[in-house]
């Protein structure tokens, strides 16, 4: 099966590349001068940064939200006069590339960003499985990469050029387990996960470990594969084990189907998940079925802090709609990069890497970001609850 899907994907990638090629011929050649050997700006006084994300595809809202967040940060920094690197002022230009959420496309688009657009830093992706394909390319070319929201620990293990501004799955899984055991007082939990996603499997493992350590019991563990639409068989088996809650570390479009089908089967227990749930589409499409459910997120738009209030109102003015956690992380990732550029000795990959790595207590909308030795952000997890058709802040869980 995978073979056939791979074949299809390969065919579609070829098609996309052909289209890309056709488009590129039409666009004017990049301005000469300044480029050459240095990866610095292709035009003097301008820095190009790249973003690769799922602008279309099954997880399109992830890529689009992130892109919006980055765009907002770029707009703000340019309005404030740009960034100053080693005493020279630059404006920032953003080039966004679409991965369609397909891991096999990541290498191609990241290579294009680095070799053709000469970006000094790459932002992206959301999905860990895609980031894991983009990261080695950045490492190879010596261009720093900041992933706003890939939470799988392996992503930053690719090399010293790879950073993230979000928490990692072990902590997210642990926070969900703590919340289920402590706040929801659940003793028996069933797990339903996407076995084809590194993110989902990783989160499941960490949740199970922490939940058992907290004295809970995992009564049923069922799997599905990305692309599945019918979860009735898995849910029926879970129903047999009558759990107090179901942990579903999947992505929002699958969670929508799971929520709808579980309620039709007469299952009323709360569903619990990770930041893969974070999309307004989930609430819109699952409606009543998702009421009283929880997920762990990077921030909650209704948290009463000054940064969040300002961010939410400017985002609303620019793009309409409340920014989700991915938009907030895209915004934070880009702003952390600009702040690091201000401290960097030059725009070379290694100098920029060192500057990013030194970020300590950076004030982002998703909380204070401190990068540790593993280039991962250490920050708190926010649990949000669906109540009255809104996702509202429920609890904040601090890192150890």
């Amino acid at each position, binding site marked *: 099966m995978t073979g056939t899907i791979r074949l299809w994907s390969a065919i579609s990638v070829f098609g996309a590349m052909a289209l890309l090629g056709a488009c590129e011929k039409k666009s004017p050649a990049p301005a000469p001068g300044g480029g050459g050997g240095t990866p610095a700006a292709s035009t003097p006084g301008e820095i190009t940064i790249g973003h690769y994300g799922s602008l279309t595809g099954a997880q399109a809202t992830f890529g689009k939200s992130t892109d919006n967040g980055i765009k907002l940060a770029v707009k703000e920094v340019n309005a404030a006069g740009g960034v100053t690197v080693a005493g020279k002022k630059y404006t920032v230009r953003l080039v966004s590339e679409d991965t369609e959420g397909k891991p096999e496309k990541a290498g191609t688009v990241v290579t294009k960003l680095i070799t053709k657009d000469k970006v000094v830093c790459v932002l992206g992706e959301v999905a860990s499985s895609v980031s894991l394909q983009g990261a080695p390319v950045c490492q190879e070319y010596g261009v720093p990469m900041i992933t706003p929201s890939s939470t799988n620990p392996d992503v930053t293990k690719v090399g010293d050029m790879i950073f993230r501004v979000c928490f990692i799955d072990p902590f997210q899984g642990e926070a969900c387990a703590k919340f289920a055991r402590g706040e929801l007082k659940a003793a028996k939990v069933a797990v339903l996960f996407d076995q084809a996603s590194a993110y989902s499997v990783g989160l499941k493992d960490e949740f199970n470990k922490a939940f058992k350590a907290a004295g809970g019991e995992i009564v049923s563990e069922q799997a599905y594969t990305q692309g599945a639409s019918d979860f009735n068989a898995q849910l*029926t088996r879970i129903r047999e084990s009558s759990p107090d809650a179901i942990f579903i570390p999947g992505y929002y479009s699958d969670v929508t189907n799971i929520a709808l089908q579980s309620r039709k089967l007469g299952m009323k227990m709360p569903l619990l998940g990770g930041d893969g749930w974070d999309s307004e589409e989930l609430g819109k*499409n699952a409606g009543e079925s998702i009421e009283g459910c929880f997920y762990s997120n990077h921030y909650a738009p209704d948290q009463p802090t000054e940064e969040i209030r300002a961010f939410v109102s400017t985002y609303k003015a620019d793009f309409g709609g409340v920014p989700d956690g991915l938009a907030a992380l895209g915004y934070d990732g880009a702003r952390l990069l600009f702040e690091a550029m201000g401290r960097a000795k030059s725009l070379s990959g290694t100098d920029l890497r060192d500057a990013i790595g030194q970020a300590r207590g950076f004030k982002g909308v998703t909380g204070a970001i401190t990068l540790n030795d593993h280039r991962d952000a250490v920050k708190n997890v926010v649990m949000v609850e669906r109540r009255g058709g809104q996702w509202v802040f429920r609890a904040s869980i601090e890192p150890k």
Partner: protein
Amino acid sequence: MDQLLQTLKDGIAIGSLYALIALGYTMVYGILKFINFAHSDVVVLGAWLSLLFARKLEAVTGWGAPPWWAGALVLILAMAACALAGFCIERLAYKPIRGAPRLNVLITAIGVSLFLQNMGQQEWMFGTRPANIPALVNDATLFTVGRVNFTLLDAAGVGTALALMVGLEWLVFHTKIGRGMRAVSHSTATASLMGVPVNRVISTTFVIGSALAAAGGFLWALKYSQIKQTADTSWTLLGLKAFVAAVVGGIGNVRGAMLGGLAIGMLEMFGAAYLWSSMTDVYVFGLLIAVLLLRPGGILGKAVVEKV
């Protein structure tokens, strides 16, 4: 007991959907001897058009609860629109290369499939976000056995699929155009010498296949209510499974497609419910391998010796 009944119900529900979609693959293969890879994209088109029609209807009538005819009207509209789309696809993409080597036609089919997928992703078409279809059938519970609910929606879904299959059966075996289809499927050249209007028969096949695909898409939308964007992997998987159903039943054989669809649906559900849920797709494609090894013509198919 609950689980057995629930699994049986789910297996029939998903199996009848696979069967409906498999019919389109098998009909086109029977007549043109090529696999119409764009067929699953017509299913997607049907699902999305059902959504658009349903929304329009909801806006126009402003119903609180859907009237009984709402579902039927949307189904007919979607089937008509997809029949037209199927007609156009055949005329514009396949007819010009009739008689070309089979590989050319196959690649054209993949091209049509990619075209439909990428068109559908455009914001002015359906966009990339998943959408929710308004409730078209009152989801009342008819009766409950143990913990298993049988709803009006289940009945409507399976009933529609069965009615369409019975209708097709009648069309193929009891009408003039059906006789034409069987004749062309037997031998295009001979049929045309006997005065069968081959082009019209082929067009009709595509129109019927696409209308059934639209019905499949409509029932899918009704069953799952969330419709994912046109290039989502779940559609590819749906198309592949329906295709497997056609092959398992015996490709080119209309009754075989129905049988194959039910077999695949049952296997998938029972495998997930009683063996490992992580291997749902393995059961389906494992069956395909087994059938190809033991009975390459499919359950109801005839072994054909290829003349070289």
